[in-house]
């Protein structure tokens, strides 16, 4: 509960900094289900952060995210933009002495963040591109010309050359309402 100070600056300065019970006790289980790894076994040794290429150049601490998973601190985890600084190099996963996959905990949290409509735009654009072309990085004219020069067909043997495969791909993505949600989040972001 707010303290009722008439100065909002003071209210903010002295806001409650305890953490209490978990925001969402199911959060740990959800993360473990999606990430297929036992986050709750973490003993906070920091091997993950020590292995992380993003840690020395940012405030991203993967150990803290694992801690948030363990304690069910859902909001703190999903709204922290550092969540998107994991390069998924899996060094932490290889070295974790508890056999946990911290990388997959991050991936699970990103999946859950998507459900909260929190996803950086580049991720959503990749989805749109894959939906419409089958490729996250589609062909272009410069490349087509180069391909022909090399003796390759202008379009590779993929959905580019065989667009009849696209409806199947779209059906799979539609099953999960992936494109629909990506479009919505992107358009809302534009307002």
């Amino acid at each position, binding site marked *: 509960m707010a303290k009722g100070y008439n100065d909002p600056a003071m209210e903010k300065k002295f806001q409650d900094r305890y953490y209490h019970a978990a925001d969402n006790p199911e959060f740990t289980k959800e993360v473990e289900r999606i990430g297929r790894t036992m986050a709750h076994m973490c003993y906070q040794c920091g*091997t993950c952060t*020590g292995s992380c290429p993003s840690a*020395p150049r940012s405030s991203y601490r993967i150990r803290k995210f694992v801690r948030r998973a363990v304690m069910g601190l859902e909001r703190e985890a999903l709204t922290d933009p550092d969540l998107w600084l994991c390069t998924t190099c899996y060094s932490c996963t290889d070295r974790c002495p508890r056999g946990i996959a911290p990388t997959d905990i991050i991936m699970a949290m990103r999946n859950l963040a998507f459900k909260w409509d929190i996803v950086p735009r580049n991720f959503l654009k990749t989805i749109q591109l894959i939906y419409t072309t089958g490729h996250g990085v589609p062909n272009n004219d410069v490349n087509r010309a180069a391909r022909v020069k090399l003796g390759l067909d202008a379009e590779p043997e993929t959905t580019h050359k065989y667009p009849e495969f696209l409806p199947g791909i779209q059906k799979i993505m539609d099953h999960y309402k992936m494109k629909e949600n990506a479009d919505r989040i992107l358009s809302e972001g534009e307002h």
Partner: protein
Amino acid sequence: MAEEKKQPRIGVFVCHCGTNIAGSLDVKAVQDYARTLPGVIVADEYQYMCSTPGQKKIDDAIKEHDLTGIVVAACSPRLHEPTFRTATKEGGLNPFRFEMANIREQNSWVHMHDYEGATDKAKDAVRIAVAKAALLEDLYPKSVPVEHAAMVVGAGVGGIQAALDLASAGIKTYLIEKTPTIGGRMSQLDKTFPTLDCSQCILTPKMVDVGRHPNIELHTYTEVEAVEGYIGNFDITLRKKARGVMTPTEATAKGIVGGGCNGCGDCDAVCPVIKPNPFEFGMKPRKAIYIYHPQVVPLIYTIDFDSCVKCGLCVEACGEKKAIDLNMEDSFETVKVGTVILATGYDMFPIEKKREWGYKQFDNVITSLEFERLICASGPTGGHLIRPSDGATPKKVAFVLCAGSRDNTGVGKPYCSRFCCMYSLKHAHQITEKIPGCQAYIFYMDIRSFGKMYEEFYYRIQDEGTKFIRGRVANILEDAKTKNLHVYAEDTLLGQPVDMVVDMVVLAAAVEPTQNIDPVRKMFGVSCSQDGWMLEAHPKLNPCGTTTAGVFLAGVCQGPKDIPDTVAQAEGAASAASIPIHMGKVELEPYFAQCIEEKCAGCGMCTNLCPYSALDLVEKNGRTVMQVTEAKCKGCGTCGGFCPGGAIYMQHFTTPQIVAQIDAFLLGGEQ
């Protein structure tokens, strides 16, 4: 077996064990059910059957109802069978007329959420037990004499202490050591925590004592080859590995008067073959004829025949002592002992398997035992700690704790190695003391300083200036030019990544059971626990014993422990091992095989199956039949499980008894 057959009159007693049993199943229903079973004269229940009033119930019921058999439904017979057998005996029945139904460890504790299922299972267990109890017979334990001698396998500090205790208690003790000298790991250490005693200084007096104790027969460079027999009467064959050098005693026995090795080292000086010394982890050379270090006990040289070129220079140098025999071969000796203590110690986990820390990839990453040798005055550098890459004195040293311990990746060891925290604190102290301006960094997850004066030692080391960084080391990289090391971790207390550049890294590598110890463990019939260490009989109440009667454990072979704990356990094991010897006899459970001669066809299949050669074919009344030597039979029943004619009678586990149990389970038997 000759007593008159009486109709079975059985008493059943169901234990609540507080709520341990009664909380998960219906004790009353089990009791009521027991009353319906054939032969059951009385069925009772009690809060704690193992208590004095509980036992008294058995005593009273036997007398009151003239019972022939007792069933107690309670915990595991592995826990309280002896208790209730005694109670049965006190009631006037033969103690082997007792049978236990396990409704706790194998029922109420494992079906805590299925009251009905657990109750049904308990009823079945009681029915099965009653069926067996109805067929139980009077049996009499066999008393066997105990050889007034003991063996200790492994002569590290644990084995040395155990041997000294046994010997001082007047028991002839064979101390067996596979390496050429006694002393074990402790002799490789420089100082000991938390007192900072010189390890050699406190160990060598004990080593010398071993060497001259009249009751200790020391066998170095010797391994256990075979074990036969049982408590009181172990026949143990030793393989005395060919050492190539005779002791004065051995020389005298061969008629070389005044000869034999006196440790002068003349041979060492002339030997042309140079090899790394394993005692110094290869950091110092030795010859093909060698001693590990000057304080070895016994002070006898050993030839490494794998590298010896048999040039004969040593034989020449030895001269009239004629101690050296280049054609020596392994020899065997069998000794008889009453009890055995295993003190086989540990090895370092091969930490190079944790690739991220670069051991064996980077010169200046060493293990803690290598550090011990490098800082030890008698070590390869005379106690001057230097970097392997360039011989420079390190000014910054990082200690990596839990290197391979507390590791659930499948590469390292899941357990805590228990003494690394403390010796790393000691190492930090040593470099701070020896090298002015040298900074120690200890990378740790938890500092486990639980022993007497340990936490105080931690306080002291912190006060001396060692920096503690709470974070497990992620990886180590080498600077190709300087050979300095970058230690990467997270300072988890600050939440900040660390790139600590140091001159040297010491890995507090996990410990694991001694290489190739499994055959020895199995020869003595000792199990191992999940972590690979030898399994004690009970983790709390019998930490020195094993499931093989007469075999005891001391030291790290049972699980990681430091020197105080090892010595304490060694003294405990010595005490336990001396009891049967001082008693002079032990009672063996009377689970012997018997031959039912009229059924025996004399086929002899069983004689080959018996692992103890307890069965023989003999002529009796013109027929060939099998005969059991009871002293050799250990009661496994393997013969009885095979006999095609059903001619083998396994006491206490007879075929009729077991079949009755099966019938009782599957066909019921309620009245």
